[in-house]
Each structure stands twice: as C-alpha cells, then as structure tokens.
C-alpha cells in the first residue's frame, strides 16, 4: 500500500449540524489513489464528489471510516500542515482563492505560510509561474486577467507549495472554452512532466476522458472505477446515474442500439471514432 498517496477506507460523511444527523453525503467510499496517476472523479450534482474532494486534505473530517494522506490520518491534528502541503487544492471560482493583488505575491502565499526562506520562495514562484505559462504576467494584477489565466495563477499558487498531489474541484466550471482548454492542458502537463498526482473532480465527460483512471460517483458511493475507455462503455449504467457519455461514444452506442451494427464502443477521440466509421463504411 506504499504506492497510494490518498486512501479512503469506508469513508462516511454527514453534515453534523442538520437535525437527526442529516442526510449522509458519503456512504462508504473506498478509494486508493496511486502516486503519479491522473484520476478523474465524475458525478452528477449532489453525488458527493466535492465532499469527497474536501476530505482529501482535511478540510472536512470523516464522520465514519478514515482517510489517509501518504499514511497520515487526516484526523490527526498535529499532522494538519503536513497533510495540506502534501495535497494541494484548487477550487471552482478563481476569484475567491487569490489572496494578493499581484500575481507573484499570490503565488508566494503558500510557501510564505510554510516559512520557506525568501530566496527559495523566489525560485519556487518563478518555477510555478513558468510551469503554468504565466511567468510574463508575474507583476500583473489578478483582477485584470481572464478566467483561464486566473485559474492558472491559482494552480501555480498550489504548485509553489510543492505538493505531491493536486485535487482540483471543478476548476473549469466557470470558464469559457478557451480557458477550459488552457487549464486542462496545464493540468495534464503537470502530471506528465512533474509526476504530480492529479485528482480532477468534474462533470464534463470530455475532461474525464483524458484521465488515466475514471471514478464515477452516485449518491455518495463509487459506482464505477476503471480506465475511461472501459467505464464509458457502460452507457446504460452511466445514464441511470444521470450522466451522459462523450459524444463519440454516444454516437457509436446509438449505431449499435438502433441499427444493430457491430461497432466497438471504446473510441474516445474524434479521430478514433472517425476511423471506426470509416472502417464500417468501407466494409459494407
């Protein structure tokens, strides 16, 4: 079990302040996130995916079960800072996570909190800003940047902390298509070149399709877990959780359902889908 950076064990959670315990949000989640992987967590609104994310760096503590971050129990208060510097978190609204009004000073916020010496902060800030492609904007005011740029600054602010894992809670929900692409490219690049573990919470199928592993949640439980290619083949099951599948899969699935054609469902990219259709047409 040394390879997993985040491990949840029968994780249960209910908001305590509601009467009679309130409805439970998480009903026994068992999840192992391997170091260096790129995991997408997909789910409908209210499936508990954001609540799960907040357990990954001790923003919320489990009502039942346990969460281990690199072997540390998140309920152990003496390890709180270690847990938070291991797992960084990026949220939906970039405006509400930027603390300073100069880009580089915002990126410096986390290392400053950790008591890193000034020269080292400078180095980390420059590196983080270069990693997200925002180095030229280091002296800009964040409120003058576009949504995608702001979100990249927020990501840089987390990278500067040198975390081993980054959890992103719907980081593209408030962005336009251009901003979405910028942010996703940044995330994938980080995972690939720096080996940072990425947990991407999303409800966009195409974003989820880019991950190595896809975890589908519904009603506070993990209902599917595997490579995106495999999971997306379970079209009917996904639909029953209120989710759609990527358009390519949808198209192939319809061909199968309606016309009884024998096409594979695992073509995720546009090119793969086109190839399948081409093969189909030339075979006739």
């Amino acid at each position, binding site marked *: 079990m040394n390879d997993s950076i985040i491990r949840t064990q029968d994780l249960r959670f209910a908001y305590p302040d509601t009467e009679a315990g309130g409805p439970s949000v998480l009903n026994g989640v068992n999840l192992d996130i391997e170091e260096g992987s790129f995991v997408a967590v997909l789910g409908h609104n209210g499936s508990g995916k954001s609540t799960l994310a907040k357990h990954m*760096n001790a*923003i919320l503590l489990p009502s039942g079960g346990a969460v281990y971050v690199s072997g540390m129990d998140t309920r152990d208060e003496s390890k709180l*800072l270690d847990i*938070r*510097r291991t797992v*960084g*978190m990026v*949220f939906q*609204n970039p*405006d*509400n*996570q*930027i*603390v*300073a*009004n*100069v880009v*580089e*000073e915002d990126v*410096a*916020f*986390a*290392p*400053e*909190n*950790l*008591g*890193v*010496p*000034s020269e080292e*902060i*400078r180095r980390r*800030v420059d590196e983080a800003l270069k990693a997200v492609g925002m180095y030229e904007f280091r*002296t800009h*005011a964040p*409120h003058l940047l576009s949504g995608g740029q702001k979100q990249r600054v927020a990501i840089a*602010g*987390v990278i500067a*902390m040198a975390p081993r894992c980054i959890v992103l809670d719907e980081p593209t929900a408030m962005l336009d298509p251009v901003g979405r692409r910028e942010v996703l490219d940044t995330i994938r690049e980080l995972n690939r070149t720096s080996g940072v573990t990425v947990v991407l919470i999303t409800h966009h199928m195409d974003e989820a399709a880019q991950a190595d592993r896809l975890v589908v949640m519904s009603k506070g439980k993990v209902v599917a877990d595997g490579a995106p290619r495999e999971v997306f083949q379970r079209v009917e099951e996904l639909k029953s959780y209120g989710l759609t599948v990527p358009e390519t899969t949808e198209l192939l699935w319809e061909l199968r359902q309606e016309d009884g054609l024998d096409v594979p469902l695992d073509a995720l990219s546009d090119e793969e889908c086109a190839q399948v259709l081409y093969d189909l047409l030339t075979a006739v």
Partner: protein
Amino acid sequence: MALKDITLGQYFPGHSVLHRMDPRTKLLLTVLYIAALFLCKNVISYGLALIVLAAAVAVSKVGLKSIVRGMKPVVVIILLTAVLNLFYTPGHEIWRFGFLKITTEGLWSAAFMVLRILMLITCTFLLTYTTSPILLTDGLENLLGPLKKLRVPVHELAMMMSIALRFIPTLIEETDKIMSAQRARGADFDTGGLVQKAKALVPLLVPLFISAFRRADELAVAMECRCYHGGEGRTRLRQLRYQSIDYAGFLLGVLLVAAVAVLRHFGL
C-alpha cells in the same frame, strides 16, 4: 459608470524612485509630510511644501490626471471647508451682503485650508499609488510590530487590510453586474429623492452582501488549503530592507519639517 472612478487604494505599478522606496519609509514620510503641512502658516512655508510635493509627483510618474480623478469624491468636503472659512473668519471686512461677509483673513484661510486638504490627499494618494497594497501592509505590520508585545493582533489586522484592498476591484465589478441585472429588470437607481434612492439600493446591497459572505467563506477555505495558520513562522517573498534612497528620503523629510518649523518660528 461612477463606480469605476474610485481610485481609493489603487496601485499603479512602476519603477520610479518612489516605487522602489521601502514602504516603511514612505509611510513615515507621509506622516512627516502631514506634520509639516500642519506646521505651515504662510505663503513661503506652503510654497515649500508644495514644491516638495510637486517634485514627488513628477518623480513618481503617476500623472496628474489620476490624482485629480481621485479628488472627485472629496470635492464637497473641500467646497464646504472653503465656504465656511471664507464667511466665518473674523477680521478686516472687504465685502458684505446681508449677514454674509468676507474678510481678508477669511480669504487667506480659505485658500490655505483648501490647499492643505488637497496636498494632504495628494500625498496619501502618492503613497497608495506607488506602493503595492501587500508591501503597504507589510510595512505597516513591520512598523507596528512592537505593538505585538501588547497583544495587539498586528498581523491579523494587516492581513485583513490587504484582503480588503484585494477585493475592492472584485466587489466593484460585482456591484456593476448586479446593478445592470437589476436595471434590466426595471430597477431605477438614478431618479427620486434621497429616501427613494436609498430604498433603491436595498435590492443592490442584499445580493452584494450575500455574495461577499460566500466569497469570504470560500477564501478562508482556500487560504487554509494553502497552509495559512496565522502570522507565526511566516516568511516573505520580499524582505523589507532600507537602502540608500530610503535614507535620502528620510533626510529630505526631516529637512522639510525642520525648515517649516523654523519658518513658523519666525512667523512666516
């Protein structure tokens, strides 16, 4: 849109001498300058203070336009001061209309008061225009550091101030957006008496407050995620260090106060 004109707490990035000066120096110089202004009594001392200020504005490359624009909200106060001083200073009468009279002393004191307020505002503008809010609060935190021993939460106050400054443009933008949304649904913010105008603000303030609370909550969580745990053991990206320009600045400030004090002593 009038909201966009608010320049309070705004910072213009730059590389002038004033920009490069240590924020602590600038804070202390501002205090020194204000002290000097209140010691000024006559044309010569006011002239001296004005020359120093004009030189500072020129060096800062901020541009007179943005300073003048920032004056807009205080125009009423300035006019009121001018009128009160003009009509209510006793002395040698030069003009009279009913109960209104203007005296030579009143004329002088009105001019000086207006000048004093304008210079006061300009010098504080120079401070905020040339110092990034983070550096400004750093400077304040550093200068007020000794108060920590008296259990004054200096770091917390400085943090609150810098966050408040950071969110001014965000909240202005949001206010603009809510106003447009309410206007689109027929809200009227511009006509009617004072009471009506105040009432029209309710549908603006309620959503603004709700959103500000939501933002505060999210920001607090985001700060915790980035390991914020108060001022203890915090380091800074930029360490504050006094350099030669700071010593030069101090020298100038002290000289100005001394000069004005001497002039005052001789009744000038």
